[in-house]
C-alpha cells in the first residue's frame, strides 16, 4: 500500500490551528528561522483515518488472535485499563504539579509499590524505569552504588550470567561498566552449579538470573545458587520477564534475590503497543533502598503522599519524572481485579503451557524433558535434518493457519528453537487449534516441505529480503528520489532470535 507521503497533495490539511492575527508576532532572528518547511503529509482528516485504519488491518495483535510469543507474555489487555488511563484527572495531569494537586496519582503509585513489594517479597520499590532493560541497568547501577559505599567497587567487577539469558542482560552489564562472566546450563536445564562454583569469588558483584529461565524451567538448585552468592558476598538480580509463572507461588525475595525488575507490559497487562510503552519497576531489599532513583514516592507522616528527592546516596535518575504513569494506572487496575487470585492467573498460565507441551512433544524435539512453567522450548532440529524445514519455516507456516508464531532461535543454546508461551488468557479450544496446526505442519514438512518453505501464503506480504534492507538501507521516504519499489524476487531471512 502507499505511504502517507505518497497520498499527500499540497494544499490539503486535517488541522485547524487557533490564530491570533490581532496580536503582534515577534520575528524569529533570521539566523534561527526555518528556511524550508518539513514535508509532512498533506491529507484531509478522513484520509488520515483511512490510512491508519488500513495499516491496522495489516497488523496482528492479541485482539486479533493467538500470540504465543515466548518470553513476551502476550495476554489479554483489558479495555477498562484504557478508559481509566484516559481520564482527564490522569491524562491531563502535569508531572510538575504541586503535591497537593496530585494526591490521587501519588496514592495510586504508592499503592502499586506496596503491591509489587508483596508480590516480589522485597522491601522497597522504584517505579521509575521505563522498561525491563532500563530496570536491568538501574539494578546494576544499584549494585555499583552499593559496593562503592562498602569500598568494594574496584574489587567487584564481574557479573555472572547464564547462557540462556535474554540479550538485554549482557548488554546492560556493558552499559553499567561491568565485565561479563558466562555460566553454562546443565543437562536438566538448570544452571551448571559446578561451573558456577568455579566462577563466583570475591571479584563477583552480582548474578543476573531469570527464574523460571528462558527455557521455561524453574531452577531446581536455586537454594544452592543463593548459598554460593551469599557466601561470596555478592548480590542477586532477578530478571522478572517470567514473573507470570510464579505470582503467589514463589517470590524472588524468598528465593534470595536482592533486586527484581518487573515487566508491567508482560505480567501486568500494559498493552505492548507494537513495541512499547513498557514499565520496568525495580523492587529491592532494604539494604539497597538508599540508592534507588529519585524521586521516591512516600506516604507522609502527617498524611497524604509525596515525592522525596532528599536521598543523598541515590544513583540519580534513569528517566524523567517518577516514571511512565499511564502504565501504572493500567497495571494497578489490572492487579486490583485479581487481588490474591493472582495465583490463579499463574496457575492457569502454567497449566496451559504444559498442556500444549504435552500435545506437541511427540512431533518436535524437546531438549529438556521436564514439566515446564508458563512457557517451553521445542526444537525443529529433526525437521531440519530430515526434511530441510527450519524453525523459521515452521513459524512462517503458522501464519497461514492464522496464528502468530512463537519466538524462534532463542534461547541460543537450543538449535532451531521454538519458544511457546500461551499465557493464561487462552481457552482450551484455541490451544487445541494451535496444537492441531503445529502437528499438521510437522506432517507437511515430511510430505510437502515447499508449503513451509514458501510460507506465508496469505499475509499482506511474502517473505522479505532482510539482506537487501541492510546492504542498501532505506530508512525514510525519499520523496522525488525514492528508490524504485518493484524488483527482483528474493528472500534472505536471517536465522536469528525473533521475539523476546
Amino acid at each position, binding site marked *: 500500500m502507499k505511504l502517507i507521503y505518497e497520498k499527500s497533495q499540497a494544499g490539503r490539511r486535517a488541522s485547524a490551528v487557533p490564530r491570533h492575527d490581532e*496580536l503582534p508576532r515577534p520575528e524569529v532572528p533570521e539566523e534561527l528561522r526555518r528556511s524550508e518547511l518539513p514535508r509532512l503529509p498533506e491529507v484531509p482528516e478522513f484520509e*488520515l483515518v483511512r490510512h491508519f485504519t488500513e*495499516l491496522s488491518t495489516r497488523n496482528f495483535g492479541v485482539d486479533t488472535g493467538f500470540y504465543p510469543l515466548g518470553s513476551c507474555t502476550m495476554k489479554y489487555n483489558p479495555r477498562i485499563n484504557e478508559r481509566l488511563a484516559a481520564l482527564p484527572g490522569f491524562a491531563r495531569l502535569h508531572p510538575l504539579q504541586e503535591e497537593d494537586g*496530585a494526591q490521587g496519582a501519588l496514592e495510586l503509585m504508592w499503592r502499586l509499590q506496596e503491591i509489587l513489594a508483596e508480590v516480589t517479597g522485597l522491601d522497597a520499590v522504584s517505579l521509575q524505569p*521505563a522498561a525491563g532493560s532500563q530496570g536491568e541497568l538501574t539494578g546494576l547501577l544499584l549494585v555499583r552504588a552499593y559496593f562503592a559505599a562498602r569500598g568494594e567497587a574496584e574489587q567487584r567487577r564481574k557479573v555472572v550470567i547464564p547462557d540462556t539469558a535474554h540479550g538485554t542482560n549482557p548488554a546492560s552489564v556493558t*552499559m553499567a561498566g561491568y565485565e561479563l562472566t558466562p555460566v553454562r546450563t546443565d543437562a536438566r536445564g538448570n544452571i551448571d552449579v559446578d561451573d558456577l562454583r568455579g566462577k563466583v569469588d570475591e571479584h563477583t558483584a552480582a548474578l543476573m538470573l531469570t527464574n523460571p529461565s528462558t527455557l521455561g524451567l524453574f531452577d531446581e538448585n536455586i537454594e544452592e545458587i543463593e548459598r554460593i552468592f551469599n557466601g561470596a558476598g555478592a548480590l542477586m538480580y532477578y530478571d522478572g520477564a517470567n514473573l507470570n509463572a510464579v505470582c503467589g507461588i514463589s517470590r524472588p525475595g524468598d528465593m534470595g534475590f536482592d533486586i527484581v525488575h518487573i515487566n508491567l507490559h508482560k505480567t501486568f497487562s500494559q498493552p505492548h503497543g507494537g513495541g512499547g510503552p*513498557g514499565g520496568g519497576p525495580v523492587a529491592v531489599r532494604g539494604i539497597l533502598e538508599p540508592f534507588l532513583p529519585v524521586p521516591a514516592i512516600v506516604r507522609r507522616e502527617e498524611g497524604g503522599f509525596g515525592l522525596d528527592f532528599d536521598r543523598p546516596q541515590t544513583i540519580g535518575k534513569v*528517566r524523567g519524572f517518577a516514571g511512565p504513569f499511564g502504565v501504572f494506572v493500567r497495571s494497578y487496575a489490572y492487579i486490583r481485579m485479581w487481588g490474591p487470585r493472582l495465583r490463579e492467573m499463574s496457575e492457569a498460565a502454567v497449566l496451559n503451557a504444559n498442556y500444549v507441551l504435552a500435545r506437541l512433544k511427540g512431533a518436535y524435539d524437546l531438549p529438556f524433558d521436564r514439566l515446564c512453567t508458563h512457557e517451553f522450548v521445542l526444537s525443529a532440529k529433526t525437521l531440519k535434518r530430515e526434511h530441510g524445514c527450519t524453525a523459521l519455516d515452521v513459524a512462517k507456516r503458522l501464519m497461514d493457519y492464522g496464528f502468530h508464531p512463537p519466538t524462534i532461535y532463542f534461547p541460543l543454546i537450543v538449535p532451531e528453537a521454538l519458544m511457546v508461551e500461551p499465557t493464561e488468557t487462552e481457552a482450551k479450544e484455541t490451544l487445541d487449534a494451535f496444537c492441531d496446526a503445529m502437528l499438521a505442519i510437522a506432517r507437511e514438512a515430511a510430505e510437502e516441505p515447499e508449503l513451509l518453505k514458501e510460507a506465508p501464503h496469505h499475509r499482506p506480504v511474502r517473505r*522479505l529480503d532482510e539482506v537487501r534492507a541492510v546492504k542498501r*538501507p532505506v530508512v525514510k521516504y525519499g520523496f522525488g528520489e525514492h528508490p524504485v519499489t518493484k524488483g527482483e524476487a528474493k528472500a534472505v531471512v536471517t536465522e536469528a532470535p525473533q521475539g523476546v
Partner: protein
Amino acid sequence: MTHPFLALTESDREEMLRTIGVASVGELFRDVPEGVRFGRELDLEPALSEQEVYAHVAELAERNADASRELSFLGAGMYDHYVPAVVDAILQRGELLTAYTPYQPEMSQGVLQAIFEYQTAICELTGMDVSNASGYDGTSVAADACYIAKHATGRGKVVVTEATNPQVRQVVKTYAAGFGLETVEVQHRDGVTDLDEVERAAADAAAVIFQQPNFFGCLEPAPELVARAADAGALPVAHVDLLSLGVLEAPARYGAAIALGEGQPAGNFPSFGGPHYGFLAAREEFIRRMPGRIVGETLDTAGERGYVLTLQTREQHIRREKATSNITTNQTLLALGGLVYLTWLGPQGLRELGETCLSLAAHAKQRLEERAGLEPVFADQPTFKEFAVRVGRNAREVVAAARERGVHPGYALGRDYEGMDDVLLVAVTERRTPEEIDRLADVLAEVAR
C-alpha cells in the same frame, strides 16, 4: 467463580491434566523446591469487579488538579498542547495497541510501515538522515547520544549546558557513570549559553548537548554554538522541541550531528510524566551506532515493497554485550501518536502552531508587564512559547497563592537553579486564549510582589 480473564472450565482442567499426566495443578510445580514455595496467600485486597475498579480509580483521578480543572501555564518540559481525537481513535485500534515488537514482518506490516513513516517525519523536522523508532523519553535519548559520541570520538567526557532541562542533565549523569564518561556543565550568561565556555569545555569532549529553545525558554545562538563545538572536535547534540520546528531552523541545517528530544508536546498527553516518546535522529555517518529499533524498506519474494526491522546487528538480541544499547521495548505506540498528530498538523499547521505560540507568549510577556508589573528576567533574549519572569517573592509561594485562585501560573525555577527563587517560568501553548492570559496577569498582579 471463574475469573473474567480466564477461560478454562472444570472439565477443561481435568482433561488437560489427564493429557499432561499429572493429578493436580499443584503437581505442575513439583520442580519448585519446598524451601522457596510461598506458603500463604498474597496479602492483597480482595479482587474487584470492573465496575468497582472503575469507581475506585476514577475517584483517585478526581483528586488531581489537572489542566481541565486549573488554568495552566505550567510547562518546563511537558506541555498542554491539544491532542486531536484522531490520535485517540488510531491508538485504540486493537491490532496496533496489542501487538508486540514487529519481529515477524509478515504479521506486522502495519506497525512497520507506520514506524517508517514516523522516521521520515522526524528526519523531515530535524533535517537528519536517520531516525530510530523511538527511545523512552527526552531524557534517556540524550544519554543514548552520549554513547554514540563516546564511540564515534573516543573521548571520555560530555558537556551539557546548564540551560538544558535539569532532568535531562540528571539522567545523562546517571548513565554516564556506567559508560565511564565524565560530565561537565557549561553556565549560561543572561539566559543563554556562554559560547567561550562551550569552546573551552568542548576541547576534549565527545559531545556538547544543548537545548533549543533552552530550559528558560530563550533561543540559544545555535549556529554559533554548534560551530564552536564542532571546531573543537565534539559532536553537537541539539535537544529540540518538535513543535518549534515550523518556525525554528532544522538542527541539521545549522550543523548539529544529532537531534533529539521529548516527543510529548507532539501528540501525547502529559499523563503525569509518561508514557511518552523520545526521538533520536542523526546524520548518516552514525547509522550503525544508533541505539534501538530502525525500520527499513525492502522487497518480498513477489517483488513487492515491504518493511522490516533492519541493521539488527547493532542490537542486544543479536549482539548481546557488544550491542549499541540494551533497549528492546521502546515507545512505539506513543511515537505512532506523534506520527498521527504530525500528519494531522501538516506543514502549514506546524508553522501556524509555532506562530500562534510565538504570538501568545509575546502577548503574555507584555500583559504580565503591563497589568502585573512583572519584568522578564532575560529581556534581551528572543523566546518561543515560554519565558521567565521575576515575581518579587518566592515563586513557590506565588504558585500556591495563584492556584488557590484557580490558575497554575508556571514553574518555580528556584526548584532547580540557585539564585532564582523569585523566578517563574511561564508556558503559553495554542490552547490558551488572550482572555486566559489576562486572567493570569490579574491573578499574578494580586499574588506576586
